[in-house]
């Protein structure tokens, strides 16, 4: 399929340097305009204009390009076609469906295939919700399409048009290119509304206003939901060296988060990981809808060997798609794995432009680009008056695992949740390897009401108490490294014992176990409450002079460590039984010391 090209003056290629080319005779071109380059019609975007010389980043391999070939303008910025057909689909960095590319070239991704987008032949059964005479505001809904088994696509009036309906088609099956509604705006101009409309990727879609984020994104992961919760509409970063499980954690969030829509961006990562997602996700059942989680997922893949300029664009493609579903009134969660590859793509392009580098070769505008990206998250009221939100969770791959490098540092400034992955935990196969000392969540305060109302009155104070215990354990461990555990007084040894249960029995979560991979909040709370109970009862014993060695009943301890497997997610009676066992054992034990 050819890209619509403008009948304007064409540019002439004058220089080629990897994915960056320069052209002459480009005075009529606009900044950020999409262009096609050379005989192969490679897709590119104007990134610098200077006199009649324009610089273009090319989204495809440039080998074979010659100077003197033409640069053709398209008259519009790099845009996406937003409409039904994106869910359950996988796209490259500029929204070309990989399945369609596969039809053109079965194994490898060739260049010069033009701009493909969502299927424009497929018929979607549409239900129209407006009638002639209705006033349609920008961003309001004029009809619905069942896009997948669980998600209804609410057909949106594009954010930049409004008017009175003068014509509506009857309910029925239409393609995304059929005109469904015609409206007349205030200037008496006619606009045709279709299922799909285009939107430039680098322009945030407008909304009515921003709200406070008051509801957590429930992920089913204990260390996140209880200790470092992420708010719906919030931002989080997951930094970690290689092998610490960033992708694994992102996959778990994509699988189990209670968002309506998931947009997953594989940005400069491994091809096999995307293949794994395509193979695994359709088989996994969403605990809420009872349907495959793929029904609510959009995948974007720019693997590490795909062209670097498209990597830079993939992040914006993802967030624009997220905004589109947000504007229908959905809670969207977006995972970007990894934002460091995006930053490196910026650096590579910047280097080819011979810009003055700032830290570690990154361009000076890195922090502002990171900020712009994360600021597209948020909980909002849509133009149509619904509630929508985008939660952004970005993985960061710091060079050498060192969190003081520019991408991690700057990301930290603009996100509210920081889930630091730790190499030594990963080495000990403690997964998820989220370090509880370095991580933080800025949402504890604003979410505490929600937790009190929906989980338990003391949920947040319990969390604080247990986190404090883990801090104390850390200090004690330093001491143990110097003098050995045997020398510590009993109350401190008791802290170490309980901390071990929290680490092994609570913080470690097994993504491959069918029960443990996703744990409902009630069980998360109950498990921690039980650990607290054991801790408190033990302290009673310590006051009576019971030594830690007697308090540590092997059988009870091993039940605690295995309770994540042995107590079913839907039947928590086992936890009460466990408390009874503690009482029985301790009551007898304490009697001996009471006199």
């Amino acid at each position, binding site marked *: 399929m050819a890209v619509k090209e403008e009948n304007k003056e064409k540019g002439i290629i*004058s*220089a*080629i340097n990897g994915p960056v080319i320069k052209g002459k005779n480009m005075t009529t071109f606009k900044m950020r305009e999409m262009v096609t380059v050379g005989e192969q019609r490679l897709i590119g975007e104007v990134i610098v204009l200077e006199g009649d010389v324009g610089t273009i980043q090319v989204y495809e*391999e*440039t*080998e*074979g390009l*010659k*100077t*003197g070939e033409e640069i053709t303008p398209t008259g519009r910025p790099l845009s996406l076609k937003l409409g039904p057909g994106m869910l359950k689909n996988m796209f490259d960095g500029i929204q070309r469906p*990989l*399945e369609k*590319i*596969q039809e053109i070239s*079965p*194994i*490898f*991704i060739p*260049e010069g295939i033009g701009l493909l987008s969502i299927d424009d032949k497929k018929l979607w059964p549409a239900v129209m919700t407006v009638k002639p005479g209705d006033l349609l505001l920008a961003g309001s809904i004029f009809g619905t399409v069942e896009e997948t088994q669980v998600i209804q696509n609410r057909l949106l009036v594009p954010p930049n048009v409004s008017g009175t309906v003068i014509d509506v088609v009857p309910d029925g099956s239409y393609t995304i290119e059929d005109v469904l509604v015609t409206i007349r705006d205030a200037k008496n101009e006619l606009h045709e509304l279709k299922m799909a409309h285009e939107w430039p990727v680098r322009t945030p879609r407008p909304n009515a206003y921003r709200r406070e984020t008051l509801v957590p994104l429930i992920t089913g992961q204990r260390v996140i939901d209880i200790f470092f919760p992420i708010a719906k509409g919030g931002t989080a970063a997951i930094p970690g*060296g*290689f*092998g610490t499980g960033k992708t694994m954690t992102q996959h778990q969030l994509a699988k189990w988060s209670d968002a309506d829509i998931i947009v997953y961006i*594989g940005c*400069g990562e*491994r*091809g*096999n990981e*995307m*293949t794994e997602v*395509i*193979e695994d996700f359709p088989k996994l059942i969403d605990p809420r809808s009872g349907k495959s989680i793929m029904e609510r997922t959009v995948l974007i893949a720019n*693997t*590490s*060997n795909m062209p*670097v300029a498209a990597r830079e664009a993939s992040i914006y493609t993802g967030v624009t798609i997220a905004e589109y579903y947000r504007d229908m009134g959905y809670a969207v969660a977006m995972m970007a794995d990894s934002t460091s590859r995006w930053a*490196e*793509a910026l*650096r*590579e392009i910047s*280097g080819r432009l*011979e810009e003055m*580098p700032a830290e*570690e*070769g*990154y361009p000076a505008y890195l922090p502002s680009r990171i900020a712009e990206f994360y600021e597209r998250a948020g909980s909002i009221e849509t133009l149509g008056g619904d509630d929508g939100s985008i939660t952004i969770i970005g993985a960061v*791959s710091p*060079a*050498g*695992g060192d969190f003081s490098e520019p991408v991690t540092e700057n990301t930290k400034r603009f996100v509210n949740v920081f889930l630091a992955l730790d190499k030594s935990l990963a*080495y*000990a*196969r403690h997964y998820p390897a989220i370090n509880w000392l370095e991580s933080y969540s800025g949402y504890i305060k604003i979410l505490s009401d929600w937790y009190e109302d929906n989980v338990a009155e003391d949920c947040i104070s319990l969390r604080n108490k247990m986190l404090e215990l883990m801090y104390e354990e850390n200090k004690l461990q330093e001491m*143990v*490294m*110097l*003098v*050995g555990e045997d020398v510590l007084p009993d109350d401190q040894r008791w802290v170490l014992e309980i901390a071990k249960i929290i680490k092994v029995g609570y913080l470690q979560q097994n993504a*491959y176990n069918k029960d443990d991979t996703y744990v409902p909040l009630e069980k998360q709370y109950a498990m921690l409450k039980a650990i607290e109970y054991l801790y408190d009862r033990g302290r009673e014993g310590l006051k009576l002079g019971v030594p830690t060695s007697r308090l540590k009943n092997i059988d009870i*301890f091993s039940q605690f*460590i295995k309770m994540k497997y042995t107590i079913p997610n839907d039947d928590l009676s086992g936890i009460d039984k466990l408390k009874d066992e503690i009482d029985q054992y301790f009551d007898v034990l304490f009697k001996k010391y009471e006199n």
Partner: protein
Amino acid sequence: MKKEYLQIDKVVGPLIQISDVDDVFYGEVVDIVEISTGNIKKGKVIKIEEKNVIIQVFQNTADLAAGNSIIKFTGQAFNLPMSLDLQGRIFNGIGEPIDNGSDIFSLVEANINGRPINPMSREYPRNFIQTGISSIDTLATLIRGQKLPIFSGNGLPHNELAAQIVRQARLGDNVDEEFGVVFAAIGVKHDDEKFFRKSFDEANVMDRVVMFVNYADDPIAERITTPRCALTAAEYLAFEKHMHILVVMTDITSYCEALREISSAREEVPSRKGYPGYMYSDLASLYERAGMLKDQVGSITFLPILTMPNDDITHPIPDLTGYITEGQIVLGRDLFQRSIYPPVAILPSLSRLMKDGVGEGFTRGDHAEVANQLFASYSKVQEVRDLSQIIGEEDLSSTDKKYMAFGRAFEAKFLNQGFDESRNIIQSLDLGWKLLALLPLTELDRLSPENIDKYFPKEA
């Protein structure tokens, strides 16, 4: 007829610049003919700016002078002829035979840069490859279609380990599925290349090996093409001829050094330690060529070897590699100095694809748990060792003393094995259980009661 050019404006290291050039394309291959001798050097266009062209020359640029050579643009991208006859042959880094054999003639030509595999076309790798080495099979399992680098240091026995894997690994399940080896030596010592050639001979696989060799004293620009030639051959054999190919490549560090040298000659803005900012993408364009395709026989399993400068795993070369590859096998100097072979430092080692390629139906049901427990216990051994450094082993608690004993036995019996010793996965797992039995049962929190019942060694 394409124009020929006589005037070289500038020679910087492996790069030459010529001016007033028309009608060349980015990536075009260039022949540089020395007028007096007729010697031909090859180069490639790496930058075009107006009528000025920068060419990267793959051979030594030492004799080049302003007017002593003719530069001919070939109108071709860097293509290599592909044929089954590649097997058993030895080529240099730009794909020319160096074994006195004939040139390869074939109608099939492939661009050495390859193209990215569409993730939709990939098959997720799940088939276990038994290498016969306990530490790798049990704890960092190699999967067919995986890219698993060996992170080594200077002087460590990475070559021996790679040779042992080539000798002991059987890649095809069925007898009628063919396997082959593609070996790329990038900037290696002549000795190392001899060692590999000898071990391929001994393993009786020489007629199935395609070798691409760039010696340490060969020009560095050729190091950029060596791995690409090798992977192009591997792709042809795996995806066109449906063979299971093991690609062994050494030493990625030399490759990255060459990349840095050329980048600096191009006056590019450096990022960490002077390496170019695009090194991640560049390495990815090599590593990502491993894999398997849906619905067809054939695979590329990729074992690159790199020596970590100063044994530093955070150095950009191992660091960027680790972010792209599916795990890593790390060799430890400390183990090596205690004469443990192969000195696999298991804690930083990892196979990302292992989770889906082990267990019932692949290896044995208890594999994942045993591996997990060995990792956790051996990680605890490190803590106990640190402690014993301070308070002395005598003063350790009785449990900690058992950890010390476990640690020693694990290194001596499990990690350590002969260069010619091949243990199958069942032997390795049973050995793991035997060693775990040295620890109190209460410490074995990663093992399920069912597996303990089934596999825990009964008291003698």
